């Protein structure tokens, strides 16, 4: 006799949490919209400091990792545990590559004296400083989400290996996947706003 599992309820619960995440980042995008409107010139100058190549590379890495996470769920449904493990490991690798890129990117900014409260930003035009305030807040919060997503994927991976997540019960993997896709979703908007439009 199996304990009844409310699959729909588990999923709706996760989605409700994701809505709160969407609104959290949405608030930051409101700030971006308002300050971009107030300081279009400063934002354009500040945007020149960002490296499009870094941004594009990270976008591709996250999109590919979203694909492998989605594919890992298919693998679990098909009872291909080996494939699921491989796909999840690859996704975790993508997350790591993303964070390493971010480390070098932020490092390069620090080299140029662009970090919160730096002398250069202190003396710069207001919009220029605000742009980097938003840049560090949004990419920092997003980076934190990448780390949390990797923890969730790791837990799911361990559960797949232990056979606790299988073709009958994989809500944990599904919900971790949803979280990971949300992180990807946020980045899809962060990327053009910071790296492209300016």
């Amino acid at each position, binding site marked *: 006799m199996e304990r009844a599992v409310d699959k729909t309820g588990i999923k709706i619960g996760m989605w409700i949490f994701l809505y709160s995440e969407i609104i959290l980042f949405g608030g930051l995008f409101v700030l971006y919209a308002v300050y971009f409107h107030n300081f279009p010139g400063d934002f354009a100058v500040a945007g020149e400091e960002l490296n499009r190549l870094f941004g594009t590379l990270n976008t591709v890495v996250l999109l590919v990792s*979203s*694909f492998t996470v*989605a594919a890992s769920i298919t693998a679990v449904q098909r009872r291909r545990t080996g494939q699921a493990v491989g796909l999840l490991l690859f996704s975790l690798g993508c997350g790591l590559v993303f964070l390493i890129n971010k480390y070098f990117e932020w490092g390069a900014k620090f080299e140029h004296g662009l970090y919160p409260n730096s002398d250069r930003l202190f003396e710069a035009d207001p919009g220029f400083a605000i742009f980097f305030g938003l840049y560090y807040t949004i990419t920092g919060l997003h980076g934190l989400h990448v780390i949390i997503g990797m923890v969730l994927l790791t837990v799911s991976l361990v559960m797949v290996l232990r056979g606790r997540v299988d073709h009958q019960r994989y809500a944990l993997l599904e919900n971790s996947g949803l979280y990971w896709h949300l992180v990807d*979703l946020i980045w899809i908007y962060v990327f053009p706003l910071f790296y492209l*439009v300016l």
Partner: protein
Amino acid sequence: MMEEQEQAHQLSYRFLALILGGLLALTGVTVAVSYVDWGFLNVPISLFVASSKATLVLLFFMHIKYEGMAIKVSFISTVLFLAIMISFTFWDVAFR
């Protein structure tokens, strides 16, 4: 018996790869387009492409297309709320 009711929906690797292909193509488009100055259209164009990508991720990777009404309706409500939050704040600032 109950399980048969909620027949888990499977997406093939091929189909998921196709979606990824679309996402990467759109990324290429948005980067290529960013090198051209479209004037005031810069932001709308890149946000439109971003929203197309977001739609693909939501519908297929996040499975919304195959969910029930509760998730579909609540998600659309969230998006509407976000749109109101951003646009009303923005109008307040823009036309002050």
